[in-house]
């Protein structure tokens, strides 16, 4: 397995910059998830690592060796494609054997490796079938098998689960995690699904507009989003954002319309500074006093209910246990702990101010 370093990687198509200075150090055996909305440059970054796209600028290093000029077949990486890209004219067995045949490996060894992988992925009974005769989940497994059979230096996965139905996706997610642990594999995984990112990654790389917005373990990205984009992208339901003003007396807090909300005090802000505050829907609690809101809509999610309400002239949503949920038209009070209030600059970057 390999470590992969990206150094100020750029990709331009004509005068459109798709990847804009991505630097990232991927450790050996690490499961890295690139996540972001469509068009954020995550797939292009992956394809550059694979060698399928040429960087316009910057460097890609595998185990410290610059590979910019190496064609994909000489990088010893394996890739799983979104649409599987199986060889429809070959049987499953031949699909699995294909990566081995370009290496100098004896036939019996190829056969034993193929059956080993087929065993591992539960494909033994379909080895003689062609991809066209397989279910979506089986095709996905063949694509995975073709990647692992060769024991490459790293795995690149481009939204491999997005063509599966929901229950199968959860199942395969688990299998991929287990597989990567067992193989101690370096994995670079691209997805637009933040649930996949949060559940699978050792470290999440949140991208937007071709730039890395934040790199960190899922919990860190969730708890300390570095800007409003990351804060809004990670977490479901989405974080609430309010425009507010800093008020330093009598204690540190923000003015949200007529209301005063205390926040943590270890931050560099000035009186009356405009800020954006972010509060996750689950950070709100119903209380006897606090922020008054008028409930406009409720969505029962089962054990929890998502409540939409008006707060100081701005729309907000919060999540409470269904048993205690208010109804449409109710006026209730919400409380929120100071440490649950994320404070961002109010400019377009929305960088995090507090808590540090």
């Amino acid at each position, binding site marked *: 397995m390999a470590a992969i370093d990206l150094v100020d990687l750029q990709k331009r198509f004509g005068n459109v910059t798709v990847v804009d200075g991505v630097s990232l150090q991927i450790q050996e055996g690490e499961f890295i998830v690139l996540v972001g909305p469509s068009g954020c440059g995550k797939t292009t970054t992956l394809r550059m690592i694979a060698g399928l796209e040429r960087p316009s600028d910057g460097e890609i290093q595998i185990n410290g060796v610059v590979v910019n000029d190496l064609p994909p*077949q000489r990088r010893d990486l394996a*890739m799983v494609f979104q649409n*599987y*890209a*199986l*060889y429809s004219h070959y049987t499953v067995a031949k699909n699995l054997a*294909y990566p081995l045949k370009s290496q100098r490996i004896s036939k019996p060894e190829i056969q034993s490796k193929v059956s080993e992988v087929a065993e591992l992925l539960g494909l033994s009974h379909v080895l003689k079938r062609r991809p066209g005769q397989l279910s979506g989940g089986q095709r996905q497994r063949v694509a995975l098998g073709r990647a692992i059979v060769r024991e490459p230096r790293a795995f690149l996965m481009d939204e491999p689960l997005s063509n599966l139905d929901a229950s199968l996706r959860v199942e395969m997610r688990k299998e991929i995690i287990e597989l990567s642990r067992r193989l101690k594999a370096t994995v670079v995984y691209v997805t637009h699904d933040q649930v996949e990112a949060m559940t699978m990654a050792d470290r999440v790389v949140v991208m937007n507009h071709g730039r890395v917005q934040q790199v960190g373990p899922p919990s860190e990205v969730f708890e300390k989003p570095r800007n409003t984009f990351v804060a809004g992208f990670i977490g479901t339901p989405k974080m609430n954002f309010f425009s507010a003003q800093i008020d330093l007396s009598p204690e540190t807090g923000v003015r949200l319309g007529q209301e005063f909300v205390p926040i943590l005090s270890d931050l560099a802000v000035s009186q009356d500074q405009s800020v954006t505050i972010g509060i996750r829907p689950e950070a709100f609690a119903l209380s006897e006093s606090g922020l008054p809101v008028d409930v406009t809509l409720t969505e029962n999610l089962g054990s929890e209910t998502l409540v939409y309400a008006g707060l100081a002239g701005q729309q907000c949503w919060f999540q409470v246990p269904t048993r205690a949920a208010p109804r449409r038209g109710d006026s209730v009070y919400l409380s929120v702990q100071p440490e649950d209030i994320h404070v961002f600059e109010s400019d377009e970057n929305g960088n995090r101010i507090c808590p540090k």
Partner: protein
Amino acid sequence: MSGSRNPFLLFLRFAIILIIVAVLLLPFLWILVNSFRPTMDIVGGPEIIPSAVTLANYTGLLESTPYWTWVRNSTIVAIMTIVLTVPIAVAASYGLNRCHFPGRNQLGVAVLAVYAFPTAILVIPMFALFNRFGLLDTYLGLALVNTLLATPFAIWMLQAFMKSVPSEIEEASAMDGSGRVRTLVRIVVPQIMPGIFSVAVFAMVVAWTEYLFASVLMQSDTNRVLAVGMADLIGQYRIDWGRLLAGSVMTAAPVILFFSITARWFLRGVSAGSLD
């Protein structure tokens, strides 16, 4: 069936299709039927259901001409033409489709522009060239000319098939450790088998029916091909219609037979399923 369910329109459509099919097939039917009629009857006038049937035209043809030699010569030339045309057309259309180089589109158009020249103007330079290289009156020489005539259109035929191969499976092949050539041979070629089959048919038909170069380049009787041999049945003063029609049937029959048998084998196993 899409379209109208109005019975009258449906009937009209079938009627039109039938007329078109009839117009296309009648000449062939006429040839087939008349090849079994005595020559005197044929000259007497057309009949769809013959009043007298005979095999004399066929036996006469086989006795008086080296038919099997011609068939053998044509077959050798046709196979050589296929063997030369298919790899060249596959490589060229792959290059024109997948490799990026300046002037690619212009080259793609230029390939077809070859057909803008009447082939007759090539006869004399070709003759001179082949004379110098000792290719006159050889199977290879005629096969080279046929390849020249077939390849441009063959490249063009393959373009559409080439475009239909998803680029992901080529990328997958590269990721699986294969270079361009291996990917082309192992992955792309099997995917475009129907196209390759069409090209092989086309190359064979070109070789089988080409007359001009065959008559000029193949001078000895032993190397004569079917198209030239059959044309010789048309004498200066007299045409034996019966034998000519029998000869036409026996020229077309091997091709039709061969491809109706091989088509199924060629197209087998090419199915969807590589992509979702």
